[in-house]
Protein backbone atom coordinates (compact mmCIF):
# COMPACT_ATOMS: atom_id res chain seq x y z
CA UNK A 1 0.00 0.00 0.00
CA UNK A 2 1.14 3.53 -0.60
CA UNK A 3 -0.47 6.90 -0.73
CA UNK A 4 -0.08 10.40 0.52
CA UNK A 5 -1.20 11.92 3.78
CA UNK A 6 -2.11 15.60 3.84
CA UNK A 7 -2.14 17.28 7.26
CA UNK A 8 -4.17 20.45 7.50
CA UNK A 9 -2.44 22.72 10.01
CA UNK A 10 -4.44 25.38 11.88
CA UNK A 11 -3.38 28.93 12.59
CA UNK A 12 -5.18 31.99 13.82
CA UNK A 13 -3.72 35.43 13.41
CA UNK A 14 -0.31 33.98 12.57
CA UNK A 15 -0.16 31.74 15.67
CA UNK A 16 -0.27 27.95 15.38
CA UNK A 17 -2.86 25.88 17.13
CA UNK A 18 -0.74 23.64 19.38
CA UNK A 19 -2.76 20.60 18.36
CA UNK A 20 -1.59 21.04 14.76
CA UNK A 21 1.89 19.79 15.68
CA UNK A 22 0.47 16.69 17.32
CA UNK A 23 -1.56 16.04 14.18
CA UNK A 24 1.51 16.56 12.01
CA UNK A 25 3.33 13.91 14.07
CA UNK A 26 0.32 11.62 13.57
CA UNK A 27 0.49 12.32 9.83
CA UNK A 28 4.17 11.33 9.66
CA UNK A 29 3.41 8.11 11.53
CA UNK A 30 0.43 7.31 9.32
CA UNK A 31 2.54 7.93 6.20
CA UNK A 32 5.19 5.52 7.53
CA UNK A 33 2.53 2.87 8.12
CA UNK A 34 1.15 3.08 4.59
CA UNK A 35 4.60 3.37 3.04
CA UNK A 36 3.70 6.75 1.58
CA UNK A 37 4.48 10.38 2.05
CA UNK A 38 3.20 13.13 4.34
CA UNK A 39 2.61 16.72 3.33
CA UNK A 40 1.26 19.68 5.26
CA UNK A 41 -0.96 22.59 4.32
CA UNK A 42 -1.72 25.89 6.00
CA UNK A 43 -4.33 28.38 4.82
CA UNK A 44 -4.60 32.12 5.33
CA UNK A 45 -3.42 35.45 4.09
CA UNK A 46 0.27 36.34 4.37
CA UNK A 47 1.27 32.96 5.77
CA UNK A 48 4.65 32.63 4.06
CA UNK A 49 6.54 32.66 7.37
CA UNK A 50 4.34 29.94 8.83
CA UNK A 51 4.81 27.78 5.74
CA UNK A 52 8.57 28.23 5.97
CA UNK A 53 8.47 27.00 9.55
CA UNK A 54 7.01 23.75 8.24
CA UNK A 55 9.81 23.41 5.70
CA UNK A 56 12.13 22.11 8.44
CA UNK A 57 9.96 19.05 9.07
CA UNK A 58 10.22 15.67 7.41
CA UNK A 59 7.54 16.24 4.78
CA UNK A 60 7.17 15.76 1.08
CA UNK A 61 5.60 19.15 0.43
CA UNK A 62 4.31 22.16 2.32
CA UNK A 63 1.37 23.91 0.72
CA UNK A 64 0.80 27.56 1.58
CA UNK A 65 -2.83 28.15 0.62
CA UNK A 66 -2.79 31.90 0.12
CA UNK A 67 -5.83 34.03 -0.60
CA UNK A 68 -7.21 37.29 0.73
CA UNK A 69 -10.54 35.56 1.26
CA UNK A 70 -8.82 33.16 3.68
CA UNK A 71 -7.67 35.99 5.96
CA UNK A 72 -10.63 35.55 8.29
CA UNK A 73 -11.88 32.00 8.70
CA UNK A 74 -15.14 31.05 6.99
CA UNK A 75 -16.37 27.52 6.42
CA UNK A 76 -17.23 28.29 2.79
CA UNK A 77 -13.79 29.62 1.83
CA UNK A 78 -11.86 26.95 3.74
CA UNK A 79 -13.96 24.16 2.29
CA UNK A 80 -13.59 25.40 -1.28
CA UNK A 81 -9.84 26.02 -0.95
CA UNK A 82 -9.11 22.63 0.57
CA UNK A 83 -11.35 20.80 -1.85
CA UNK A 84 -9.28 22.25 -4.68
CA UNK A 85 -5.98 21.36 -3.04
CA UNK A 86 -7.03 17.79 -2.27
CA UNK A 87 -8.21 17.25 -5.86
CA UNK A 88 -4.97 18.71 -7.20
CA UNK A 89 -2.65 16.70 -4.95
CA UNK A 90 -4.72 13.49 -4.98
CA UNK A 91 -4.08 13.04 -1.25
CA UNK A 92 -5.37 9.67 -0.09
CA UNK A 93 -5.75 10.62 3.58
CA UNK A 94 -6.42 14.02 5.06
CA UNK A 95 -5.81 14.63 8.76
CA UNK A 96 -6.96 17.58 10.87
CA UNK A 97 -6.49 18.55 14.52
CA UNK A 98 -9.90 18.11 16.17
CA UNK A 99 -10.40 21.81 16.90
CA UNK A 100 -13.61 23.84 17.00
CA UNK A 101 -12.71 25.29 13.59
CA UNK A 102 -12.20 21.85 12.07
CA UNK A 103 -15.55 20.75 13.47
CA UNK A 104 -17.05 23.73 11.63
CA UNK A 105 -15.82 22.92 8.11
CA UNK A 106 -14.22 19.46 7.84
CA UNK A 107 -17.51 17.48 7.81
CA UNK A 108 -18.62 19.72 4.95
CA UNK A 109 -15.38 19.14 3.08
CA UNK A 110 -15.60 15.35 3.51
CA UNK A 111 -19.18 15.43 2.20
CA UNK A 112 -17.91 16.97 -1.07
CA UNK A 113 -15.98 13.73 -1.60
CA UNK A 114 -18.90 11.54 -0.49
CA UNK A 115 -16.88 10.70 2.60
CA UNK A 116 -17.33 11.16 6.32
CA UNK A 117 -14.88 12.75 8.68
CA UNK A 118 -13.85 10.09 11.18
CA UNK A 119 -13.68 12.58 13.99
CA UNK A 120 -11.82 12.95 17.28
CA UNK A 121 -9.65 9.86 16.72
CA UNK A 122 -6.99 8.67 19.16
CA UNK A 123 -5.02 6.16 17.08
CA UNK A 124 -4.93 4.21 13.83
CA UNK A 125 -3.72 1.08 12.11
CA UNK A 126 -3.92 -0.29 8.60
CA UNK A 127 -6.06 -3.39 8.18
CA UNK A 128 -5.95 -5.15 4.80
CA UNK A 129 -5.12 -1.89 3.10
CA UNK A 130 -7.86 0.14 4.77
CA UNK A 131 -7.21 2.65 7.54
CA UNK A 132 -8.88 1.84 10.88
CA UNK A 133 -9.18 4.68 13.37
CA UNK A 134 -9.82 4.32 17.09
CA UNK A 135 -12.20 6.82 18.64
CA UNK A 136 -14.21 7.21 21.81
CA UNK A 137 -17.92 6.59 22.19
CA UNK A 138 -20.32 7.52 24.97
CA UNK A 139 -18.17 10.38 26.30
CA UNK A 140 -15.15 8.14 26.69
CA UNK A 141 -16.84 5.16 28.36
CA UNK A 142 -16.12 2.92 25.33
CA UNK A 143 -13.78 2.92 22.38
CA UNK A 144 -14.56 1.90 18.82
CA UNK A 145 -12.47 0.95 15.81
CA UNK A 146 -13.89 2.65 12.74
CA UNK A 147 -12.83 1.42 9.33
CA UNK A 148 -12.73 3.72 6.32
CA UNK A 149 -14.11 1.62 3.48
CA UNK A 150 -14.36 2.45 -0.20
CA UNK A 151 -12.14 4.67 -2.31
CA UNK A 152 -9.84 7.42 -1.03
CA UNK A 153 -9.53 10.15 0.08
CA UNK A 154 -10.35 9.41 3.71
CA UNK A 155 -10.74 12.11 6.32
CA UNK A 156 -9.98 11.99 10.04
CA UNK A 157 -9.41 14.44 12.88
CA UNK A 158 -7.02 13.81 15.76
CA UNK A 159 -7.91 14.34 19.41
CA UNK A 160 -5.85 16.74 21.53
CA UNK A 161 -3.10 14.87 23.35
CA UNK A 162 -3.49 11.62 21.39
CA UNK A 163 -0.12 12.09 19.66
CA UNK A 164 3.02 13.79 20.85
CA UNK A 165 4.40 16.81 19.09
CA UNK A 166 7.90 15.98 20.35
CA UNK A 167 7.87 12.87 18.15
CA UNK A 168 7.77 15.06 15.08
CA UNK A 169 10.61 14.23 12.72
CA UNK A 170 12.69 17.00 11.26
CA UNK A 171 13.84 17.12 7.69
CA UNK A 172 13.38 19.38 4.74
CA UNK A 173 10.35 20.07 2.64
CA UNK A 174 9.67 22.11 -0.41
CA UNK A 175 7.18 24.97 0.05
CA UNK A 176 4.65 25.48 -2.69
CA UNK A 177 2.17 28.32 -2.80
CA UNK A 178 -1.31 27.29 -3.83
CA UNK A 179 -3.76 29.97 -4.88
CA UNK A 180 -7.30 28.62 -4.79
CA UNK A 181 -10.04 29.97 -7.00
CA UNK A 182 -12.41 31.65 -4.53
CA UNK A 183 -15.37 33.90 -5.29
CA UNK A 184 -16.44 36.50 -2.70
CA UNK A 185 -20.15 35.90 -3.30
CA UNK A 186 -19.78 32.18 -2.58
CA UNK A 187 -18.86 33.01 1.00
CA UNK A 188 -22.16 33.25 2.80
CA UNK A 189 -21.03 33.94 6.37
CA UNK A 190 -19.74 37.34 7.44
CA UNK A 191 -17.56 36.86 10.54
CA UNK A 192 -16.59 39.54 13.05
CA UNK A 193 -13.24 39.41 14.81
CA UNK A 194 -13.03 36.83 17.63
CA UNK A 195 -13.41 38.29 21.12
CA UNK A 196 -13.19 37.28 24.76
CA UNK A 197 -15.89 38.17 27.24
CA UNK A 198 -14.89 40.57 30.04
CA UNK A 199 -11.58 39.81 31.72
CA UNK A 200 -11.58 36.76 33.92
CA UNK A 201 -12.01 37.53 37.59
CA UNK A 202 -10.83 34.05 38.51
CA UNK A 203 -7.47 32.80 37.33
CA UNK A 204 -7.57 29.07 37.96
CA UNK A 205 -4.19 28.60 36.32
CA UNK A 206 -2.44 30.12 39.35
CA UNK A 207 -3.94 27.65 41.85
CA UNK A 208 -1.82 24.91 43.45
CA UNK A 209 -4.84 22.83 44.36
CA UNK A 210 -8.14 22.74 42.52
CA UNK A 211 -11.28 21.03 43.72
CA UNK A 212 -13.54 20.61 40.73
CA UNK A 213 -17.18 19.56 40.77
CA UNK A 214 -19.34 17.88 38.14
CA UNK A 215 -22.83 16.56 37.52
CA UNK A 216 -22.53 14.12 40.43
CA UNK A 217 -23.35 16.99 42.79
CA UNK A 218 -26.94 16.75 41.49
CA UNK A 219 -28.30 20.11 42.75
CA UNK A 220 -27.18 23.68 43.14
CA UNK A 221 -28.02 23.45 46.85
CA UNK A 222 -25.26 20.84 47.23
CA UNK A 223 -22.43 23.06 45.94
CA UNK A 224 -21.45 24.15 49.51
CA UNK A 225 -20.43 20.53 50.20
CA UNK A 226 -17.49 20.82 47.79
CA UNK A 227 -16.95 24.46 48.65
CA UNK A 228 -16.24 23.29 52.17
CA UNK A 229 -13.62 20.84 50.88
CA UNK A 230 -11.96 23.53 48.76
CA UNK A 231 -11.81 25.77 51.80
CA UNK A 232 -10.31 23.04 54.00
CA UNK A 233 -7.61 22.32 51.39
CA UNK A 234 -6.97 25.98 50.57
CA UNK A 235 -7.98 25.18 47.01
CA UNK A 236 -9.74 27.04 44.21
CA UNK A 237 -13.18 25.75 43.33
CA UNK A 238 -13.74 24.82 39.68
CA UNK A 239 -16.36 22.92 37.71
CA UNK A 240 -17.07 20.93 34.58
CA UNK A 241 -19.15 22.52 31.87
CA UNK A 242 -22.65 21.29 32.83
CA UNK A 243 -22.34 22.91 36.27
CA UNK A 244 -21.60 26.29 34.68
CA UNK A 245 -24.24 25.76 31.97
CA UNK A 246 -26.79 25.36 34.74
CA UNK A 247 -25.56 28.53 36.39
CA UNK A 248 -24.60 26.71 39.61
CA UNK A 249 -21.11 28.22 39.40
CA UNK A 250 -19.96 31.12 37.19
CA UNK A 251 -18.58 30.33 33.71
CA UNK A 252 -15.17 31.66 34.75
CA UNK A 253 -14.73 28.63 37.01
CA UNK A 254 -15.10 26.20 34.11
CA UNK A 255 -12.25 23.84 33.27
CA UNK A 256 -12.17 22.18 29.84
CA UNK A 257 -11.89 22.87 26.13
CA UNK A 258 -14.26 25.83 26.28
CA UNK A 259 -13.02 27.01 29.69
CA UNK A 260 -9.62 27.25 31.32
CA UNK A 261 -6.71 24.84 30.92
CA UNK A 262 -5.04 24.18 34.24
CA UNK A 263 -2.04 22.22 35.52
CA UNK A 264 -2.09 22.49 39.32
CA UNK A 265 -0.19 20.29 41.76
CA UNK A 266 -3.42 18.55 42.68
CA UNK A 267 -6.66 18.39 40.74
CA UNK A 268 -9.48 16.77 42.64
CA UNK A 269 -12.38 15.80 40.38
CA UNK A 270 -15.55 15.29 42.41
CA UNK A 271 -18.52 13.74 40.62
CA UNK A 272 -16.95 14.41 37.22
CA UNK A 273 -17.21 11.52 34.74
CA UNK A 274 -14.34 12.77 32.59
CA UNK A 275 -15.60 13.50 29.09
CA UNK A 276 -12.74 14.46 26.78
CA UNK A 277 -13.88 18.10 26.70
CA UNK A 278 -13.11 18.21 30.40
CA UNK A 279 -9.97 16.05 30.34
CA UNK A 280 -8.15 18.31 27.87
CA UNK A 281 -8.43 21.11 30.41
CA UNK A 282 -6.86 19.26 33.35
CA UNK A 283 -4.82 16.30 32.08
CA UNK A 284 -1.67 18.30 32.74
CA UNK A 285 -2.21 18.34 36.51
CA UNK A 286 0.65 16.76 38.45
CA UNK A 287 -1.62 14.64 40.61
CA UNK A 288 -5.21 13.83 39.77
CA UNK A 289 -7.67 12.57 42.37
CA UNK A 290 -11.06 11.25 41.24
CA UNK A 291 -14.08 10.67 43.43
CA UNK A 292 -16.95 9.09 41.53
CA UNK A 293 -19.66 6.55 42.16
CA UNK A 294 -19.18 4.87 38.76
CA UNK A 295 -16.01 2.76 38.73
CA UNK A 296 -16.11 2.78 34.91
CA UNK A 297 -16.07 6.58 34.67
CA UNK A 298 -13.34 7.68 32.22
CA UNK A 299 -11.94 10.06 34.86
CA UNK A 300 -10.32 7.04 36.52
CA UNK A 301 -8.25 6.49 33.36
CA UNK A 302 -6.26 9.63 34.13
CA UNK A 303 -6.46 9.57 37.94
CA UNK A 304 -3.48 8.86 40.20
CA UNK A 305 -5.74 8.24 43.19
CA UNK A 306 -9.32 7.08 42.95
CA UNK A 307 -12.18 6.64 45.36
CA UNK A 308 -15.25 4.84 44.08
CA UNK A 309 -18.05 6.00 46.30
CA UNK A 310 -20.88 8.37 47.05
CA UNK A 311 -19.48 11.88 47.07
CA UNK A 312 -22.09 12.92 49.62
CA UNK A 313 -20.40 10.54 52.07
CA UNK A 314 -16.79 10.78 50.89
CA UNK A 315 -16.46 14.57 50.67
CA UNK A 316 -17.67 15.39 54.21
CA UNK A 317 -15.41 12.62 55.56
CA UNK A 318 -12.55 14.09 53.58
CA UNK A 319 -13.21 17.56 55.03
CA UNK A 320 -12.98 16.06 58.53
CA UNK A 321 -9.73 14.24 57.75
CA UNK A 322 -8.12 17.27 56.10
CA UNK A 323 -9.02 19.44 59.08
CA UNK A 324 -7.61 16.80 61.45
CA UNK A 325 -4.37 16.56 59.47
CA UNK A 326 -3.95 20.31 59.40
CA UNK A 327 -4.63 20.93 63.08
Amino acid at each position, binding site marked *: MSGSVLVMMEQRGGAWSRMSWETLAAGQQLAAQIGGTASAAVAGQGIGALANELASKKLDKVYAIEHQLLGAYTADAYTAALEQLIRKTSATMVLFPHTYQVR*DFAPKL*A*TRFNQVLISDTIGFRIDAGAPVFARQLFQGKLNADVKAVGPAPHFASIQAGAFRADQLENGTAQVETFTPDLKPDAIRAKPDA*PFRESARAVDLTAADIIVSVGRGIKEKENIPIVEELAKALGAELAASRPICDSGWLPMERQVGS*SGQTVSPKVYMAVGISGAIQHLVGMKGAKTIVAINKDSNAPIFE*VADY*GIVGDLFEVVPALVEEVKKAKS
Partner: protein
Amino acid sequence: MKIIVSIKQVPVRDSQLRIDSSGRWIQESDLSFEINEPDAYALEEALQLKEKHGGEVIALCLGPARASQTIREALAKGADRAIHIEEENLTAFDTLGIAKLLAKAAEPEKPDLILTGLQSDDLGAGQTGVVMAEVLGLPSATIIMAVETAGSGIRVKRELEDGWFQNVEMPLPAVLTIQSGINKLRYATLMGIKKAKTKEIRRVTVAELGGAPAPVATIERVYLPQRTKQTQMLDGTAKEAAAKLVEKLKFEVRVI
Protein backbone atom coordinates in the same frame (compact mmCIF):
# COMPACT_ATOMS: atom_id res chain seq x y z
CA MET B 1 -39.86 31.49 11.23
CA LYS B 2 -40.22 27.84 10.31
CA ILE B 3 -37.70 25.84 12.30
CA ILE B 4 -36.82 22.17 12.07
CA VAL B 5 -35.03 20.72 15.09
CA SER B 6 -33.22 17.48 14.48
CA ILE B 7 -33.17 15.41 17.67
CA LYS B 8 -31.69 12.07 18.59
CA GLN B 9 -32.57 9.58 21.28
CA VAL B 10 -29.58 8.23 23.21
CA PRO B 11 -29.09 6.02 26.30
CA VAL B 12 -29.54 7.95 29.55
CA ARG B 13 -26.33 9.42 30.79
CA ASP B 14 -25.62 7.16 33.75
CA SER B 15 -26.32 3.92 31.85
CA GLN B 16 -24.14 0.92 32.61
CA LEU B 17 -23.08 -0.02 29.10
CA ARG B 18 -22.46 -3.58 27.99
CA ILE B 19 -21.01 -4.61 24.66
CA ASP B 20 -23.38 -6.77 22.60
CA SER B 21 -22.66 -10.23 21.19
CA SER B 22 -21.65 -8.85 17.78
CA GLY B 23 -18.89 -6.85 19.50
CA ARG B 24 -19.82 -3.92 17.32
CA TRP B 25 -22.36 -2.07 19.44
CA ILE B 26 -23.89 -2.04 22.91
CA GLN B 27 -26.74 -4.11 24.35
CA GLU B 28 -29.72 -1.83 24.09
CA SER B 29 -32.41 -4.10 25.49
CA ASP B 30 -31.91 -3.22 29.16
CA LEU B 31 -31.26 0.51 28.74
CA SER B 32 -33.44 3.59 29.19
CA PHE B 33 -33.29 6.35 26.61
CA GLU B 34 -33.66 10.13 26.57
CA ILE B 35 -33.16 13.09 24.26
CA ASN B 36 -29.51 13.81 23.43
CA GLU B 37 -28.64 16.70 25.72
CA PRO B 38 -27.33 19.22 23.16
CA ASP B 39 -30.45 18.48 21.08
CA ALA B 40 -32.59 19.46 24.08
CA TYR B 41 -30.87 22.86 24.01
CA ALA B 42 -31.46 23.09 20.24
CA LEU B 43 -35.16 22.38 20.79
CA GLU B 44 -35.35 25.01 23.53
CA GLU B 45 -33.65 27.56 21.26
CA ALA B 46 -36.17 26.81 18.51
CA LEU B 47 -39.08 27.24 20.91
CA GLN B 48 -37.69 30.57 22.15
CA LEU B 49 -37.15 31.82 18.57
CA LYS B 50 -40.73 30.87 17.75
CA GLU B 51 -42.01 32.71 20.82
CA LYS B 52 -40.09 35.82 19.71
CA HIS B 53 -40.74 35.74 15.98
CA GLY B 54 -43.74 33.46 15.49
CA GLY B 55 -43.76 30.51 13.13
CA GLU B 56 -43.58 26.79 13.60
CA VAL B 57 -41.26 24.25 15.23
CA ILE B 58 -41.01 20.79 13.72
CA ALA B 59 -39.14 18.03 15.54
CA LEU B 60 -37.31 15.65 13.21
CA CYS B 61 -35.97 12.36 14.48
CA LEU B 62 -34.36 9.32 12.89
CA GLY B 63 -34.68 6.40 15.24
CA PRO B 64 -36.42 3.15 16.13
CA ALA B 65 -39.99 2.90 17.42
CA ARG B 66 -38.79 3.64 20.97
CA ALA B 67 -37.79 7.15 19.85
CA SER B 68 -41.46 8.12 19.68
CA GLN B 69 -41.27 8.66 23.47
CA THR B 70 -38.59 11.34 22.98
CA ILE B 71 -40.58 12.86 20.11
CA ARG B 72 -43.69 13.06 22.33
CA GLU B 73 -41.66 14.86 24.95
CA ALA B 74 -40.51 17.41 22.36
CA LEU B 75 -44.13 17.96 21.37
CA ALA B 76 -45.09 18.31 25.04
CA LYS B 77 -42.47 21.02 25.45
CA GLY B 78 -43.99 22.96 22.58
CA ALA B 79 -42.93 21.64 19.17
CA ASP B 80 -45.93 21.90 16.82
CA ARG B 81 -45.53 18.62 14.97
CA ALA B 82 -42.95 15.95 14.26
CA ILE B 83 -41.46 13.80 11.53
CA HIS B 84 -40.22 10.40 12.62
CA ILE B 85 -38.00 8.49 10.21
CA GLU B 86 -38.63 5.11 11.73
CA GLU B 87 -35.74 2.70 11.41
CA GLU B 88 -34.72 -0.05 13.82
CA ASN B 89 -31.19 -0.67 12.60
CA LEU B 90 -29.30 2.61 12.88
CA THR B 91 -25.91 0.89 12.84
CA ALA B 92 -26.43 0.22 9.11
CA PHE B 93 -25.72 3.88 8.37
CA ASP B 94 -22.80 6.23 8.79
CA THR B 95 -23.03 9.96 9.46
CA LEU B 96 -23.31 10.75 5.78
CA GLY B 97 -26.21 8.33 5.32
CA ILE B 98 -28.02 9.63 8.39
CA ALA B 99 -27.53 13.28 7.43
CA LYS B 100 -28.76 12.55 3.90
CA LEU B 101 -31.93 10.93 5.24
CA LEU B 102 -32.58 13.83 7.62
CA ALA B 103 -31.93 16.33 4.82
CA LYS B 104 -34.30 14.48 2.50
CA ALA B 105 -37.05 14.58 5.12
CA ALA B 106 -36.43 18.24 5.93
CA GLU B 107 -36.20 19.55 2.37
CA PRO B 108 -39.90 19.56 1.35
CA GLU B 109 -40.73 21.56 4.49
CA LYS B 110 -38.61 24.47 3.20
CA PRO B 111 -37.53 25.54 6.70
CA ASP B 112 -35.94 28.93 7.43
CA LEU B 113 -33.70 27.38 10.02
CA ILE B 114 -32.52 23.89 10.95
CA LEU B 115 -31.14 23.42 14.45
CA THR B 116 -29.50 20.42 16.04
CA GLY B 117 -27.16 19.71 18.94
CA LEU B 118 -23.44 20.12 18.31
CA GLN B 119 -22.85 16.40 18.89
CA SER B 120 -24.50 13.29 20.23
CA ASP B 121 -23.72 11.79 23.61
CA ASP B 122 -23.42 8.29 22.09
CA LEU B 123 -21.37 8.49 18.86
CA GLY B 124 -20.14 12.02 19.38
CA ALA B 125 -19.19 12.50 15.72
CA GLY B 126 -20.42 16.09 15.81
CA GLN B 127 -21.22 16.25 12.12
CA THR B 128 -24.89 15.64 11.43
CA GLY B 129 -25.83 19.33 11.25
CA VAL B 130 -22.89 20.39 9.09
CA VAL B 131 -23.36 17.51 6.66
CA MET B 132 -27.11 18.21 6.44
CA ALA B 133 -26.27 21.80 5.52
CA GLU B 134 -23.87 20.71 2.81
CA VAL B 135 -26.33 18.18 1.37
CA LEU B 136 -29.04 20.88 1.29
CA GLY B 137 -26.65 23.52 -0.07
CA LEU B 138 -27.19 25.76 2.98
CA PRO B 139 -24.71 27.79 5.05
CA SER B 140 -23.97 26.50 8.53
CA ALA B 141 -22.33 27.52 11.77
CA THR B 142 -21.38 25.33 14.69
CA ILE B 143 -21.16 25.37 18.49
CA ILE B 144 -23.61 28.26 18.74
CA MET B 145 -24.18 30.14 22.00
CA ALA B 146 -26.67 32.84 20.80
CA VAL B 147 -29.03 33.31 17.86
CA GLU B 148 -30.71 36.56 16.87
CA THR B 149 -32.29 37.88 13.70
CA ALA B 150 -30.38 40.49 11.69
CA GLY B 151 -32.23 41.97 8.73
CA SER B 152 -33.36 39.07 6.57
CA GLY B 153 -30.71 36.79 8.04
CA ILE B 154 -29.30 35.88 11.42
CA ARG B 155 -26.43 36.80 13.67
CA VAL B 156 -25.00 33.95 15.74
CA LYS B 157 -22.35 33.69 18.43
CA ARG B 158 -19.89 30.86 17.78
CA GLU B 159 -17.95 29.43 20.67
CA LEU B 160 -14.22 29.04 19.99
CA GLU B 161 -11.70 27.42 22.30
CA ASP B 162 -10.29 28.88 25.50
CA GLY B 163 -13.08 31.32 26.26
CA TRP B 164 -13.05 33.00 22.83
CA PHE B 165 -16.18 33.75 20.83
CA GLN B 166 -17.02 35.11 17.41
CA ASN B 167 -20.15 36.70 15.98
CA VAL B 168 -21.09 35.65 12.47
CA GLU B 169 -23.85 36.91 10.21
CA MET B 170 -25.41 34.66 7.61
CA PRO B 171 -28.45 34.56 5.36
CA LEU B 172 -31.42 32.27 5.88
CA PRO B 173 -32.13 29.45 5.39
CA ALA B 174 -29.24 28.10 7.43
CA VAL B 175 -28.25 25.21 9.69
CA LEU B 176 -26.89 25.75 13.20
CA THR B 177 -25.45 23.28 15.70
CA ILE B 178 -26.27 24.36 19.23
CA GLN B 179 -23.97 24.17 22.26
CA SER B 180 -25.25 22.98 25.63
CA GLY B 181 -25.91 25.84 28.02
CA ILE B 182 -27.10 28.33 25.36
CA ASN B 183 -30.40 28.70 27.23
CA LYS B 184 -32.31 27.37 30.19
CA LEU B 185 -34.27 24.23 29.43
CA ARG B 186 -37.99 24.21 30.17
CA TYR B 187 -40.03 21.38 31.58
CA ALA B 188 -43.13 20.15 29.83
CA THR B 189 -46.30 21.42 31.48
CA LEU B 190 -49.30 19.20 32.18
CA MET B 191 -51.18 21.14 29.54
CA GLY B 192 -48.30 20.59 27.13
CA ILE B 193 -48.29 16.87 27.77
CA LYS B 194 -52.05 16.73 27.16
CA LYS B 195 -51.78 18.74 23.95
CA ALA B 196 -48.92 16.61 22.66
CA LYS B 197 -51.24 13.63 22.37
CA THR B 198 -53.18 15.31 19.58
CA LYS B 199 -50.18 16.69 17.68
CA GLU B 200 -49.17 15.14 14.39
CA ILE B 201 -46.24 12.71 14.16
CA ARG B 202 -45.69 11.85 10.51
CA ARG B 203 -43.89 8.54 10.14
CA VAL B 204 -41.74 7.85 7.11
CA THR B 205 -39.46 4.97 6.29
CA VAL B 206 -35.92 5.01 4.95
CA ALA B 207 -37.22 3.40 1.75
CA GLU B 208 -39.78 6.18 1.27
CA LEU B 209 -36.92 8.68 1.44
CA GLY B 210 -35.10 6.84 -1.32
CA GLY B 211 -32.75 4.86 0.94
CA ALA B 212 -29.28 5.77 2.10
CA PRO B 213 -25.89 5.18 0.47
CA ALA B 214 -23.71 2.28 1.63
CA PRO B 215 -21.60 3.41 4.59
CA VAL B 216 -18.05 4.60 3.95
CA ALA B 217 -17.10 4.31 7.63
CA THR B 218 -18.11 1.29 9.67
CA ILE B 219 -17.68 0.38 13.33
CA GLU B 220 -15.58 -2.79 13.36
CA ARG B 221 -15.33 -3.30 17.09
CA VAL B 222 -16.41 -1.70 20.36
CA TYR B 223 -14.26 -2.27 23.45
CA LEU B 224 -13.35 -0.93 26.87
CA PRO B 225 -10.62 1.71 26.82
CA GLN B 226 -7.28 0.75 28.32
CA ARG B 227 -6.12 2.64 31.35
CA THR B 228 -3.08 4.75 30.60
CA LYS B 229 -2.25 5.48 34.22
CA GLN B 230 -1.73 3.25 37.27
CA THR B 231 -4.53 4.47 39.48
CA GLN B 232 -4.21 3.72 43.19
CA MET B 233 -7.76 2.89 44.22
CA LEU B 234 -8.45 3.77 47.83
CA ASP B 235 -11.15 1.52 49.25
CA GLY B 236 -13.04 0.98 52.47
CA THR B 237 -15.83 3.01 53.98
CA ALA B 238 -16.10 6.68 53.07
CA LYS B 239 -14.22 7.54 56.25
CA GLU B 240 -11.47 4.99 55.62
CA ALA B 241 -11.01 6.03 51.98
CA ALA B 242 -10.91 9.70 53.00
CA ALA B 243 -8.27 8.99 55.64
CA LYS B 244 -6.16 7.08 53.11
CA LEU B 245 -6.40 9.93 50.62
CA VAL B 246 -5.34 12.53 53.18
CA GLU B 247 -2.41 10.27 54.05
CA LYS B 248 -1.38 10.25 50.37
CA LEU B 249 -1.83 14.00 50.00
CA LYS B 250 0.28 14.55 53.07
CA PHE B 251 3.15 12.10 52.54
CA GLU B 252 3.27 11.34 48.79
CA VAL B 253 1.96 14.51 47.14
CA ARG B 254 2.96 16.75 50.06
CA VAL B 255 0.32 19.41 49.72
CA ILE B 256 -1.12 19.21 53.24
